[in-house]
């Protein structure tokens, strides 16, 4: 039988913070999204207080005061480094891995004997080596593995590892009957309410639903989900993530922005970041889109949003050329008299650098110069910390940048932010 495991890190962002701030252990902790907006990670203590995911922080201030909830700004540099460590360790436990998100990974464990014990040993290794607690769900399809992980996390008697394949089918069905249909991977909020109208409330009821009817009502995707719930693996592990076709970098401002020079700085900063990503996947972009918008939630203020796609003269990954195009677009769409809340850039028509179309008018010398300048820039910023060398237009003091009031140190990627032991 196929054995697919889904490994999910528990309260991943909070766990990363606790690794380097052990005094947060046992305390109610949340990590907030960019600009300290909403809750994106909750410790068990906070979940026990009934705090839901994605709740705006300002709504929690009273509860936080009463229970001493500690709120941290998100430190994605740290989380990405810890995630990479977890994923590399996990890859040693199976020949086939799909990294599904920053804190989730599928592993193919078909053919491994005594899987529960194997998974427990793997769990222990991850905890010891990187200090991150994980839960493991094992089943014969990815959709079931996701549910097995849900059970491993919620039901203490499984001790963080739940193997559906080790259960008898009445035993498994009894378990699936207790889980709401909305927990199934790929069943969104809208489908959930439509399924409920059809009388399908539990996972078991969806599993037993006639495939034809599901297909007629919801399409092939959900029909496939039903097959997966019946133990038929329809979704394979994608071992290599294809290079991204679009790269987006956009953020809300920490403070409202009205002036063009501030927007220009922000756009340059976002292009810089997007171009770094583009170069790290050895690609070129053929076009760049820039957009700005006001805050749609502030209805009293005049609203404006506009985007512009700018084709590039030739595909490039040179920050300077991309910035030049983006700024040209920004100046055309900018209107004074609005309070802007967000800007962003998107790189499009992405091709591998090796597939650059050659033309008679290519200035190869300039292309080489650009490539070596950019790789030098990337090397310096990698070694000395990001932003060591930047375009001056990005500005030195960024008065538009994100609010990150309570961000921890970048313990694993910056020399002067290491943890200290006395």
């Amino acid at each position, binding site marked *: 039988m196929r054995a697919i495991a889904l490994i999910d890190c528990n309260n991943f962002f909070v766990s990363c913070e606790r690794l380097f701030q*052990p005094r947060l252990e046992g305390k109610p902790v949340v990590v907030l999204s960019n600009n300290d907006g909403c809750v994106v990670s909750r410790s068990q203590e906070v979940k026990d207080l009934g705090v839901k995911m994605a709740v705006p922080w300002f709504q929690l201030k009273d509860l936080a005061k009463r229970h001493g909830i500690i709120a941290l700004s998100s430190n994605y540099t740290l989380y990405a480094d810890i995630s990479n460590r977890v994923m590399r360790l996990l890859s040693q436990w199976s020949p086939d891995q799909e990294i599904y998100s920053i804190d989730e990974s599928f592993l193919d464990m078909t053919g491994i004997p005594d899987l529960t014990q194997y998974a427990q040993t793997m769990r222990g290794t991850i905890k*010891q*080596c*990187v200090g991150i607690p994980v839960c493991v769900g094992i089943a014969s399809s990815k959709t079931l593995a996701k549910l097995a992980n849900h059970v491993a996390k919620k039901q203490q008697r499984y001790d963080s590892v739940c193997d559906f394949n080790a259960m008898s089918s009445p035993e498994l069905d009894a378990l699936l009957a207790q889980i709401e249909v909305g927990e199934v991977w790929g069943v969104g909020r809208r489908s959930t309410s439509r399924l409920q109208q059809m009388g399908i409330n539990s996972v078991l009821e969806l599993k037993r639903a006639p495939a034809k009817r599901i297909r007629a009502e919801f399409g092939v995707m959900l029909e496939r989900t039903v097959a997966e719930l019946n133990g038929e693996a329809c979704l394979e592990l994608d071992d290599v993530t294809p290079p991204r076709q679009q790269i987006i970098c956009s953020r809300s401002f920490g403070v409202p922005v009205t002036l063009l020079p501030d927007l220009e700085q922000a756009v340059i900063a976002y292009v810089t970041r997007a171009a770094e990503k583009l170069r790290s996947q050895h690609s070129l972009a053929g076009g760049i889109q820039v957009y700005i918008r006001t805050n749609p939630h502030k209805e009293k203020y005049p609203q404006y949003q506009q985007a512009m796609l700018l084709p590039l003269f030739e595909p490039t990954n040179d920050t300077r050329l991309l910035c030049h195009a983006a700024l040209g677009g920004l100046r055309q769409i900018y209107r004074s008299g609005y309070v802007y809340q967000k800007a962003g850039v998107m790189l499009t028509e992405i091709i591998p650098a090796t597939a650059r179309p050659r033309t008679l008018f290519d*200035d190869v010398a300039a292309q080489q110069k650009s490539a070596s300048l950019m790789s030098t820039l990337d090397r310096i910023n990698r070694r000395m910390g990001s932003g060591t060398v930047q375009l001056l237009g990005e500005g030195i003091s960024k008065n538009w940048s994100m609010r990150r009031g309570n961000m921890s140190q970048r313990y694993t990627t910056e020399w002067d932010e290491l943890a200290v032991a006395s």
Partner: protein
Amino acid sequence: MQAAIHSLPAGRTAPGQVPSRQVPRAAHGLLSLTYPNKELFHRQCALLRGAVPAGFPSPADDYVEQHISLDEHLIRHPESTFFMRVAGDSMRGLGIFDGDLLVVDRSLPTAHGCVVIAVLDGEFTVKQLLHTAEGQVLRAAHPAYADTLIKPEQDFSIWGVVRWNVHKV
């Protein structure tokens, strides 16, 4: 000519020359005759001229080894290795000074007498770990610091084992 270029040992290009893998494909072929960029064309020529002597393989070629890497030497398990900074002089007797850089491996088992990063009441501390009849003891390497016997009710754990100390001379 091309064969001569490829026999150059990797990473041994003379100063001022372009490493062969950076040479655009067009420059090798017919197109290079009409190549619009004079400067680049001359550089390519220089490269080709310079490459000819290397047609006779260097007798040292077989002995080219990789660079030695301090990272590889200090870090046996990259996934579980973390760096930490020392504050204070409680470990100076073991050659660990204020401001030093510790290479900490979380994957290693602890043993009697090894230097560890411990978490004691929520704070990191670097000390020598001793297993005694009374229980686990954290010992500083400094006469002014007394041993700390870990009490069962205390919030205590071992965070990692210190493998190396990097001290600036």
